[in-house]
Structures are given as C-alpha cells and as structure tokens.
C-alpha cells in the first residue's frame, strides 16, 4: 500500500470516527433545541419568589386542562382531582392529582410532563411539582400530589387553552430490592 493511500485512508477513518461522535453530540444539541423552542412541551421551572413577583393580568382568563396517563408497566392509578382550571396569567395556581399503588409491592414512579400547544410551554413555569423527583408508593398507598404553576402574562393572545399532560412511568431502577438481590445471586451462581 502506497504512502499516500495510507494517509488518505487514515484521514477518512478519523472522519468516520468523528461522525460516530457527532451522533452522540446530537443528544445535548436536541435538549438545547427543545429548551429554546419549547419543542415536545418541556415546561420550565421558576422559584417561588420570582413567581410571586410576576405581574397578574386580571383582565384575562386562560384555561389549563389536565391529562393523566400511566405506562402499562406501572401498577398505579393516576387522576387529576379537577380536569380543568381557569387562571389569570401571572397568578400562582395549584392543581391536585391523586395516585394510588394498586399492587402489593412498593414501587417508585416518575412522572414526565408535556404541554400543548408546544409554544405555550415557553410561558408555563412551575414552582413545585411531583414530577421534579421520583415518587415512592407503599403497597396500596393512596397519595395526593400537587403542582404549583404560573402562566406567564406574555402568553400570546391567540392561546386561550393549554393541556398539561403527565405520564407516570416506572422509574428505571425501581424493581424491589428482594428481586434484584435474587437476580444478582443467580447471576453469580451461573457464572461459577
């Protein structure tokens, strides 16, 4: 193989390796894009203090609807206490949700929010949400959970209704301790 062939091939292999890396760079780039554009309805988070200092537009009322879903892998019931609320832009509102663990095992769930229309998610911020952390429910436990949110008063005029949707998933590492211990014992014994 001639020297110049070797050089060409080396450069091209490096280019291919960089493109493999680029596939992974697309992951943070996508998250950034979602933050900037409100794509996929990812909602924002604000401090209580900042939310309280917002200007309240008493002349306008917008509707916030709630939609609740449970991933089939999670043995829970999940409902909003009220299906919709009318709020003034700028005012802090509170919505209550009820979850119940219908299984006989403790389970950890994680709620993932999404808001439509996606554009509204740029003006929709939460000061407190059960979706900020994973939730543990004991067997048969029933719990009320709250979301405290504020719709920014800069919300475009043409948006009068928003739907906030939550899906509860089983948290990735929530298999109960007993099972995972058994599995690791099995794995060890099968290795030996």
């Amino acid at each position: 193989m001639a020297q110049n062939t070797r050089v060409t091939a080396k450069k091209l292999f490096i280019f291919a390796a960089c493109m493999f890396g680029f596939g992974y760079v697309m992951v943070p780039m996508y998250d950034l894009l979602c933050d900037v554009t409100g794509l996929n309805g990812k909602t924002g988070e604000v401090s209580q203090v900042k939310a309280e200092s917002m200007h309240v537009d008493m002349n306008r009322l917008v509707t916030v609807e709630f939609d609740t879903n449970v991933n089939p892998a999670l043995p829970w019931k999940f409902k909003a206490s009220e299906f919709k609320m009318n709020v003034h832009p700028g005012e802090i509102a509170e919505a209550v949700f009820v979850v119940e663990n219908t299984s006989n095992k403790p389970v950890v769930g994680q709620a993932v929010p999404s808001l439509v229309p996606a554009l509204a998610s740029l003006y929709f911020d939460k000061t407190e949400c059960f979706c900020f952390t994973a939730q543990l429910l004991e067997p048969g436990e029933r719990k009320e959970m709250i979301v405290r949110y504020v719709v920014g008063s800069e919300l475009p005029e043409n948006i009068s209704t928003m739907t906030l949707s939550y899906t509860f998933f089983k948290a990735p590492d929530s298999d109960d301790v007993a099972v995972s211990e058994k599995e690791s014992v099995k794995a060890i014994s099968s290795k030996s």
Partner: protein
Amino acid sequence: MSYAAVHEDDHHDHDHKPTGIGRWLFSTNHKDIGTMYLVFSLIMFFIGGAMAMVIRAELFQPGLQFVDPQFFNSMTTVHALVMIFGAVMPAGVGLANWMIPMMIGAPDMAMPRMNNMSFWILPFAFTLLLATFFMQGGAPAGGWTMYPPLVLQLGDGFPFLIFAVHFLGISSIMGAINIIATVFNMRAPGMTFMRLPLFVWTWIITAFLLIAAMPVLAGAVTMLLTDKFFGTAFFDAAGGGDPVLFQHVFWFFGHPEVYILVLPSFGIISQIIPTFARKPLFGYASMVYATASIAFLSFFVWAHHMFTVGMPLAGELFFMYATMAIAVPTGVKVFNWTATMWKGSMTFETPMLFAIGVLFMFTLGGFSGLMMGITPVDFQYHDTYFIVAHFHYVLVPGIVFGIISGVYYWMPKWTGHMYDEKLGKLHFWTSTISVNVLFFPMHFIGLAGMPRRIPDYSTQFTDWNMIISIGGFAFGLSQLILVWVVIKCIRGGEKATDQVWEGAHGLEFTLSSPPPFHSFTTPPEVTDATAHS
C-alpha cells in the same frame, strides 16, 4: 487496445489465479470481489423479493389469509433491511469494484485486503439478521427504521439486529474509504478530476456520504442497545430521554442514505445514455456540481420524514424549503440526460431501454416526493400507501433499473460474450409493465387512506390490492429472466469486441473483453480526446 495486448504478454508469468474456493475466500482482486458483491446482491434481491411476495399474497384479499400479523410485520421490516443493505448497496459497491479501477486506469483497488474484508463481513451480517427468524420473539417487526420504544420490545433477536447493522456499517465504511483512496491516488496520468467518468464521480460523492452518514446510524443503534441492556435513557421518557430524538438521529443518517442508494444509479445512466445517443454527455461539469449539491443538501432535509411528530412552524417551513431546493440540482440532471438524447442517433439496446426507464420513472417518483415535501399535505400522505408508492418508484424503477442497466451495459465486457438481446428486451418490457401495475395504483389507495404496514384493510381497497398483487407476482417472475440471461451470457454467446458498443468511450473499453486479471499494469496516458464520453 494496444496496451491490452501488452498486458497479456507480461501477465503470463505472474497472473496465476488461485483456484477453487480459495480464489473467492482470499481474493484481493477487484474483479473477483466485484463479482462476489454482485452475486451476493442478486441472492439478497431474491430473498427480499420472496418476502415481498409474502406481503402481496397476504394483501391479495382483505382479512388474514396466510400469515399472522406479527410475521407480516417481520416481512415488511426485514424486506426493507435486506433490499436496502443487502441488495441495492452491495450491487452499487460491486459495480464500483469492477468498473472504477478500469475507468481510471488503475491495476486494482488501493487497499485490496480491506476490499476482501468489506465483502466477507456481509454474509456474516445477514446471517445474524436472518437468524432472528428462528429466535424467541421472532425477527424484527417494528419497521426498518427501528423506532423506539417499539423496537425495544423485540425478543432475543434484538442484539442480533443491532450487531447486524453495526457490521453493515463497518463494511460499507471500509468499502467507501477504499473507493476514495483508489480514485484519489491511483488515477492514470492525465486523468484529472474533471475528466473522470461520471460513474466515478457519483461514487466518490456516494462514498463521502457513506462515511458521513453510516457512523451516525451506528451511534443511534448503539444508543438503542445501551438503552435496552445497560440502563441508559437516551430514548426512554421515564429516564428523561425522548423517543423523538431517535427519529432525528436516525433520519440524519436516513436521508443521506437515500442518495447513497440513488447516486450510483445516476452515474450508471450518465455512462449509458451518451453511448446509445452517440453524443457526449450534455453539461458534464453541471452534472458534477449538481451531484455534489444534492449530496450537500441531503444533510439538511432529514425532518421531512417526520413532519407529523410535532415541530415548531419555523422548523416545518425550513425543512419544506430545503426539500424543495433539492429538486433544483435533480432537475439539472434530468434536463442534462434529456438534452444528451436530443438530436442523438439513438438506438434502443437493453441497457438504453432500462436507462430511459430510470429517467422516466425516477422522475415520477421524484414528483410524488415533492408532493410529500409540502408540509401541510404531507399530513394526509404520512404513513399511507402513497409514501410506499413514492419510495418504491425511486427505489425500483429508479435504482434497481439503473443497476440492471449497468449490468447489461458492462456484462459483455465482464464475460467476453454478448448477452441475448431478445431475452434482455423481454426482461425490460415485462419488468416495466409489471412494475407500474405493481406500484402505480398504490398512489390511489394511499390517497384514499390505506395505511402502510398493516396486514388487513377495509374492503373498498380490495380491487386495487388484487391488481397490485398481480403486478407484484409478475414483477417477481420477470426477474428470473435476468438470472437466465446472466447464466447464458457467462456460458457463451457471440464474442464481444473490446469496445462492445459502437458509441462506447472510456478506458474500460480499451481493455480486452473479458479484461485481464489485473486491469492496467502500465498506466495509460489520458488526453482530452480519450477522456470522458
């Protein structure tokens, strides 16, 4: 001609081909490897074709007849993977292996051992993929696009699917690097870049697309693998990921992949049309620039595959206009091919018939592509038979016909015998009629709302589905004629001249038919007169 004679003399001493199976297993010869690629691709074409026949048999009537829905879904999924990665891509690489060294005046490819490796990875990759049919959970059935979370529900076959894709990626990246290294470093004296035959040009650009796009696919499927087995959450909403992200990464590969498939076919017909119109190619330089622009633009249009997943308006508009922009360089190419035929002394041998078929029917597929590029109307077409009609028009009469025309065009050069022209023409006409009976009505049922990838349908679609299935069976059977023509041509036939075709130009037609084992051991001198046709 004169140097061909020289070759035969100095080849007597060191031109010893290994014999038996070893000749193929350990081959480093560009022609033998090219032949293996082409034979492999033909076998895969029939395996993928058999799956298409199962699909069409099931869809002949509404209701469930022959296969259960899970197996039907495996058929659509694996049919696509086999046809794209097993039939079309290896056929393109096979033609590149055979023709590029001869076209640029080189003795062989730049890295012959790597060439051997990139071929022999393929049978292993497809063994992994096709073995999934015999596993718990069956073969991949979530669509060839492998969207999560559906693909993660695949059973034991899942890691086999992922590693098969990895192998295919490695194989085509190595093949692409070899082609670029060959063209950049092994051109004969005087063979400047702007004198390269257009087939070589389209292949350089395809090779760059492969190197840029295939690693991204490898990255995407690696993320699927770690999501399933190693607890990452790239695409898992519960862990903070997003399944829509996969679609972005996948189609960032997937759209350039479309041009990886089609550009070699463009190159082939750019060789054939001037030969049989007996005129030089119209607008050579504009063809090169148009091909490069298509390749460049192909990296900025991926989201037109996913208009319906939800995107900001600005995004939908950007991807719509970028998609429309690709029609401009493609239009330049179609114009140039037509202008090449204008006032030419045309004859219609089989390769020319297939090339004109590409020109007509690829353009038709291109138009339905433009229709789907218009965001608002795409919401109606998305995931219906309209898209099936579109991509089969560009893939079958656009690309497969291009490859077949190349095979007919160069077969006399490879074997030293003319093929049976009557059978060739029969193959063209049966294929062309049946391919239109097969794919054209799909536009109608698609617009009427028949969804793709479903084994059953509403009864109002029955008549067209029956016609489509009949077209499908006829198209499948027509391809057996090709096999017969190839076998007959290898066995014997009228002796082909060095130039083969009256209007053929280019270095490959200065070599004997069949060419010597090592193409050009003394590089030929290329001047303007002997350069591109």
